[in-house]
């Protein structure tokens, strides 16, 4: 009994101690900077993240010894990370604001269409920009107002600060505001899930992410297709940016060169994006 208790005490002391030490180590490491020179840190948009990860993987294989680490967090978070020196490259899935453009150097790595998606069971195939604006600002509340069935429209938007949302506001809404009644979902995946499950829902997402179970709508009669984005006929397109503060470091430059090379561009096209021209 006694031995058992002793044993137990020692055990708690040990685990308590190690937890404490680990916490301490965590605290001290939070302060250390990431200037180990070897790795290129890429932080930012969750829309670009999967593409950047793929690029980084192939790049790492082609150039052993070079390491590129990709993290998400959002477009704005990426810009902050570049400003703080936490990241060598920030990724941003929207145009920079005037103030941001003064502070950062953007490099367009690809362009991306913004698709308007509905459930395949929805008979509507085409919306004008004006109708879209009306739906998302809450002026049109019923699908029959825009040529559909008599059913309440359920617009789905992304959260405040998302690059996709900001592009959508910039491209479609203009000065108008997205209605406060619109459902807010925090990822492309969640928007997809909802639109797939609800015949009355309408949402927006990157053209490259549209898959089976979603119906992309024509906007002003133009089908959302890569060639129409390239030719400028489909107007809902946004730039995908790599952002640096001042000139990039040599290692970062090497990765950027790879992304802009014919090979990198081809990979991006293969994933449904549109080359940077």
């Amino acid at each position: 009994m006694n031995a058992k208790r002793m044993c137990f005490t020692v055990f708690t002391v040990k685990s308590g101690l190690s937890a404490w030490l680990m916490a301490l180590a965590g605290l001290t490491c939070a302060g250390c900077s990431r200037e180990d020179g070897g790795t290129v840190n890429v932080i930012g948009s969750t829309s670009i993240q999967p593409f950047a990860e793929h690029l980084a993987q192939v790049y790492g294989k082609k150039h052993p010894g070079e390491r590129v680490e990709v993290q998400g967090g959002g477009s704005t978070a990426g810009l902050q990370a570049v400003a703080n020196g936490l990241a060598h490259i920030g990724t941003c899935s929207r145009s920079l604001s005037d103030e941001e453009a003064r502070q950062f150097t953007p490099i367009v790595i690809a362009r991306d269409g913004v698709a308007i998606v509905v459930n395949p069971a929805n008979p509507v195939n085409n919306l004008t920009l004006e109708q879209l604006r009306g739906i998302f600002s809450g002026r049109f509340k019923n699908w029959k107002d825009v040529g559909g069935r008599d059913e309440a429209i359920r617009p789905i938007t992304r959260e405040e600060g998302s690059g996709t949302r900001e592009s959508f506001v910039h491209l479609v809404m203009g000065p108008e505001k997205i209605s406060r009644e619109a459902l807010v979902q925090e990822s492309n995946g969640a928007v997809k899930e909802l639109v797939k499950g609800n015949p009355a829902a309408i949402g927006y997402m990157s053209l490259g992410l549209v898959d089976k179970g979603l119906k992309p709508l024509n906007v002003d009669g133009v089908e959302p297709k890569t060639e129409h984005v390239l030719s400028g006929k489909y107007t809902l397109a946004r730039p995908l940016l790599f952002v640096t503060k001042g000139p990039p470091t040599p290692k970062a430059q090497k990765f950027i060169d790879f992304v802009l090379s014919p090979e990198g561009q081809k990979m991006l096209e293969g994933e449904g994006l549109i080359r940077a021209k």
Partner: protein
Amino acid sequence: MRQDNVIKAILMAVAFSAILGLVLITVFIFKEGMPIILRIGGREFFLSSDWDPRAGRFGIFSMICGSMMVTAGAMVIGISFSLGLAIVLTQFSPPRLTAVLKPVIELLAGIPSVVYGFMGVVTLVPLIRIHLGGPGLSVLAASIVLGIMVLPTVTSIAVDALNAVPRPYWEGSIALGATRWQTTHMVMLRAARSGIVAAIILGMGRAVGETMAVIMVAGNTPAIPHGLLDPVRTLTANIALEMGYAAGDHRRALFATGVTLFVFIMVLNSIALVVSRRGARRTGAP
């Protein structure tokens, strides 16, 4: 002897680092959040429901309402099931059934909240949308998911409270000719009242603080819901949704949302503490 002192010192250090952590977190959120509440004014911040961070308007009234509605709904569902379960487990079920039921309920507490949220999205939300109307993502969906999530917490504390009632109370009541149910609701529930109230309040704290599952099923619209089928945004959802992007005043406003939540939960926990202590003194039970 010396070894004892060393161990004592180490354990004290561990204990105090926990307290230090709590103090640091408190100081930090108040330091980040209070200035903006003071600057834009408590009235504007707490009583306006105009949340438009881009335009610099921060009013969280709709989310305070949202948190309260969702929590109230969750408690209605959670309490009815938990109390029922606790009564069955302590008074009516044969020991063998208890031996199976209790661990199963406790296991519910170990399921991660995303899983609850995901189950809600794929099963509950379509059910509500098709059979009751509305967008599906709603106060009701959030309440049901949260109600199930608080079940293990409330049940196990209520069970402990009922088990802590001295045996002679029960024996006395039965000896006087009361039936089992009469004994349960006239003697046992009364005697365990303070513990049960504490259980409910702790469950409420959990419901107010839950984030992930709520984001997935609540719809997150920053408008005051007018009914159970309307979508809703809670205080926690507001912080989690926008924290990744926020900078400047927006970030501070999210910390201020955190301050609100902190005060909310502190008040709930203090009530729980006071109630359970007062109860302990009166009945003499530990």
